[in-house]
Structures are given as structure tokens and as C-alpha cells.
């Protein structure tokens, strides 16, 4: 009898601890949802219970966001920036990852590590010189500056990810193609690339989410409201003077964060095995 009590007590403690973690992780998002759909009279009333709707939920904040602010424009900007960066990244990182994976001797591995280390060079170290370079190119205050700069972190990361993938791809398939009359380059284009579509898809998703998450370069290079990507627009442009429009800000944050969160969850395992570079074997 006492044994079953200890066991069920342990069970309770386990689920309490688990609940603590889930609440810790998700409360800010719950808070976004609640704030986004509360009318202002409910939101800014200290007497009300803040955890639930005291009045009917409203879509006013979302409507305001699309009607009165540049929110839709920011969404479009982010989409354009993301797509361009994805194209640049795939075109450069797929061949690079393949070359590094197929290099004989340890040259490929060394190059891979060198490229990956550049991923660790932080934006806050590079933003000053890069802002000068962008000014020289006449791209200051334009979203195209981000298209130029974002591949500096997506290329290293994705090359490394793809190197790991191509290493796991048996070289015999390409050798067979070469015996059948394919050139070396043909073997890469006609054999290795079609077989790596799942990995390339992962790279596409990650590149896109990385561009959505970036903040420092966007903040440094862009000050015109109509050129801002979504993350920057929502977090800096919905504040008039000193007044925060919390309902609108939270609605915007929610809309911008949701797709990233979903994509990340689906591809998380590949991300982790990517950055740890097979440290677990």
C-alpha cells in the first residue's frame, strides 16, 4: 500500500514538473493570443482578470493591422527577401556541400569546418563595415541589402548541412552513371541532386526561417517603414512616439511567428543533427 502511494506521488510530481515547463514555454504565446483578440477597454482595465476575456473577443486589432498599417507590405517584403535568399543559398550551397563531401583526403572536412565557423561570426561584429559596403553599393535603406547580406549566414549553415547529407549518399550511384557515359558534372546534376531533394527541401525551409528570425541586420540597414521585413516592422514600427499599441503588436507578432514555429517544429531534428555535425554517433 505505501508503495503505491509513493508511486502515485512520484507520478503527480512528474506531471506538475512537466506542466511547469509547458507553461513556462508557452505562456508568452498564450499572452499574445489573449492580447491580440481583446478589445482595448478590456485590455487596459486593471480591475479585470487579465487571463481571460472579460468582454467579447474582437478582430479589431487584426483589421487595424491590415487596414491602417504597412503590415501586409512587411509580409510581402519578408516573402520576397526569403525567396531571393533561398534561391541564392540553394544555388551556392548545394554544389559547395557536394564538393566538400566528395573531396578526397581531409581537405573537404577542413574546408567544411572553416565555412561553418563563419556562421559563428556575429552580425554585431560585421554590421558596421557591412553598412558602409551597402552604402557604397547604393543599397542603404532598401530591403535588397538584406537579400545581399542574409546569405552570409545561410550559405555556411546550409553547406555544412548538405555536406553531411551528401556524405551519406553512396558514391557508387554516381560511379555507375560515369561508367555509363556521364561526365563528372553530369553525375552530380543527374544523380546526386535528384536524390538529395529531401535535404534541399530542409535547406529551403531553414533558410526561410533564418531570414524571418534575423533582426540585427534589418535594424541596422533599414529605417524606411515600407522596406522593413515583418519581424522588424512589428517590433519597431507599431509604436507611435512612446505609445505601444499592444493589441496590434501582439496580433502582428502572432501572425508572423506562427508559420516559423510550425516549420521549425517539423524540421527540428535535422537542424540539431546539422549543428552538432554528427558529434553523436
Amino acid at each position, binding site marked *: 500500500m505505501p508503495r503505491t502511494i509513493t508511486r502515485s506521488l512520484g507520478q503527480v510530481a512528474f506531471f506538475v514538473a512537466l506542466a511547469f515547463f509547458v507553461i513556462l514555454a508557452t505562456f508568452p504565446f498564450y499572452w499574445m493570443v489573449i492580447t491580440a483578440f481583446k478589445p482595448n477597454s478590456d485590455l487596459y482595465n486593471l480591475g479585470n482578470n487579465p487571463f481571460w476575456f472579460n468582454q467579447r473577443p474582437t478582430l479589431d486589432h487584426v483589421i487595424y493591422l491590415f487596414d491602417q498599417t504597412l503590415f501586409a507590405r512587411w509580409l510581402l517584403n519578408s516573402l520576397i527577401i526569403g525567396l531571393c535568399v533561398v534561391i541564392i543559398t540553394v544555388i551556392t550551397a548545394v*554544389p559547395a556541400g557536394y564538393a566538400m563531401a566528395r573531396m578526397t583526403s581531409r581537405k573537404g572536412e577542413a574546408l567544411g569546418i572553416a565555412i561553418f565557423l563563419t556562421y559563428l561570426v556575429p552580425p554585431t561584429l560585421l554590421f558596421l563595415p557591412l553598412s558602409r559596403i551597402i552604402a557604397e553599393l547604393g543599397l542603404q535603406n532598401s530591403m535588397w541589402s538584406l537579400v545581399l547580406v542574409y546569405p552570409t549566414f545561410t550559405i555556411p549553415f546550409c553547406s555544412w548541412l548538405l555536406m553531411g547529407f551528401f556524405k551519406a549518399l553512396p558514391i557508387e550511384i554516381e560511379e555507375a552513371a560515369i561508367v555509363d557515359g556521364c561526365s563528372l558534372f553530369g553525375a*552530380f546534376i543527374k544523380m546526386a541532386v535528384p536524390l538529395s531533394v529531401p535535404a534541399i527541401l530542409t535547406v529551403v525551409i531553414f533558410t526561410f526561417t533564418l531570414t524571418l528570425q534575423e533582426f540585427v541586420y534589418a535594424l541596422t540597414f533599414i529605417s524606411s517603414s515600407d522596406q522593413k521585413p515583418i519581424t522588424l516592422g512589428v*517590433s519597431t514600427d507599431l509604436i507611435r512616439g512612446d505609445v505601444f499599441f499592444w493589441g496590434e503588436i501582439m496580433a502582428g507578432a502572432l501572425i508572423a511567428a506562427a508559420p516559423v514555429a510550425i516549420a521549425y*517544429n517539423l524540421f527540428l531534428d535535422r537542424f540539431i543533427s546539422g549543428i552538432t555535425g554528427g*558529434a553523436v554517433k
Partner: protein
Amino acid sequence: MVVVAETLPRPATRFQFLLDRRDALEAVLIAPAILYVLLLVGLPLLLAIYYSVSAYTLYNPTWHFVGLANFEQIIQDPTFTHTLANTFIFTFGSQLLGLVLGKFGAFLLLRPFPGRKIVRALIILPFAVPVALATIAWRWMFDSLYSVITWTLIAMGLVERVNAPNWLGDPHLAMLCVIIINAWRFFPFAIVIFLAGITAVPQDVLDAATIDGAGFWRRNYQIILPMILPIVAIGLIFGIVFTFTDLSIVFLLTQGGPVGATSVLGFAGFQTGIVSGDISHGAAISLFMLPVLLVVVIFMLRFIRRREI
């Protein structure tokens, strides 16, 4: 260009010859990536170093060499030493908190229970969403008047409305808030790293240890921990690099305030270099990150090498 050369029906050109040599082909394939990184990471890095030893500002862009004068001026500035100390407190405080939460969370998630996948997906959220958006949500939660945390504390009878904590207005509380947000952002990452490490420990090793009489703690700290150390180290290196150089949380939450209490290197570099246009001093401030980054990178390289042996 290369693609075109290939799709033509066997033109016996120089390109064809080039593309059939393995080393030449590899060089061609890898060149765009390397060029991109050299031009937009390598060159700016050198420029940053050059700015830091010159008297270059946005208003007076001369390339006048001043040696280490910028660094000397910065070090003598008490607000900078304060910023440097803040950066270390912020980094190690949040990493420690994140690691403790991560280890504990991983321990919970190791056990199978119904709905584990959903719980894992929910716990990952802080690491998945853009940090700027999450920080804005936290700012709202730390609002001086409408803070939900304050409301809860008052409702529980722990504090009065008149002396409610001013989360972002008090120097110590503001630093604590910044640390909490960063730890909150990184603990899911730590959980995933720990989980990846622990599940890779072979079961037979653990069984053998149990048979030999190793208890729970001994298995945990003398077998599992040393075995997962490499992967935890790599995760930690990521956490340290991205925290030490962070700008977004401080920028969006406190603007370095109150009175510089939460100013960190990235933020100070931004304020001096971009907002004030004093590029050379801004670059010099940012370059103080470099020693820490170098140490971290050396550690990382050593780990990678050890793994290969």
C-alpha cells in the same frame, strides 16, 4: 554558365575537359560559396579591424590611422567597463539558467508518457519563434502598469499595487528580466541537445553499469555525462556565441537602460557606431567580442579533432 556548358550535346570544349577533372570540378562547385563568404564576411571583418584603428566617422570619413587610441579611450570610459561586465553577467547568467532548465526538462522528456510529442513541440516554441517577436511579448508582460506578472503577484497578496516591482525600471530587476528572456529562449535548445546526447548513449553500456552496481546518480554523472559532454559542449558554444554578441533582446526590452544597467557589447557598438555615427569607436567596441569568440572557436576545433581520433 556551367550548366549551359553541360546541357549542350557533347561540345568538346575546354569546359568539357575541365568538368571531367575531379579536382577542377570541385573547385568550380565550391567557388561561389567561398567567394560569397570571403567578400561579405572576411572582408567586413578586416574592415572592422581597420576602422577600429582609424579616426573614421560617418561625418568625417577619413582613413586617418590612430593606432590603439580608440581602444585606450574606450577602456578608460567607466560606462564601457560596466557594459563589458554586463555582457559577461548576461551571458553566463542566462546560459547557466538555460542549462539547468534544459537538463531538468530533458530528464522529464526522456520518460515515455501519452502526448510526449505534443509536449515536446510546445516546449520547443521559445527557440523556434523569432527572438524579436518573443521579446516584444515579454516587454508587454513586464509592462510597468499592465504587467500580468505584477497582477498575479497582487492577486496572490504578495505585493501591493503601490510598491509593485517596476520590472524594467529597476537596474537589478531589468538585468534579471533580460537574463530570464534569454534563458527562456535557449532552454528548449538545451533540452533538445541533452535529449540527442542521452538517447545516443548505448543501452548495453548502462545495463552493464547497472549490473556492476552503479546507482542512479553514478550512472548519470560518471557514465552519461562524460559521454554526452562533446555534444553539450557544442550546444553551449552556440549558446555563448549567440548570447555574448546579442543585441535584439536588450534593444527591444530596455534600450540598455535604466542608466546603462543592461547595456551589452552588441548594443553599445550599435549605439556608438550606427546611432551616433562614430564608426571607429563602434567598431572598436564590437571587436572586444573577438577574444571571447576566438577562445570559443579554439575549444570547438579541439572538440571536433578529438572526436575524429
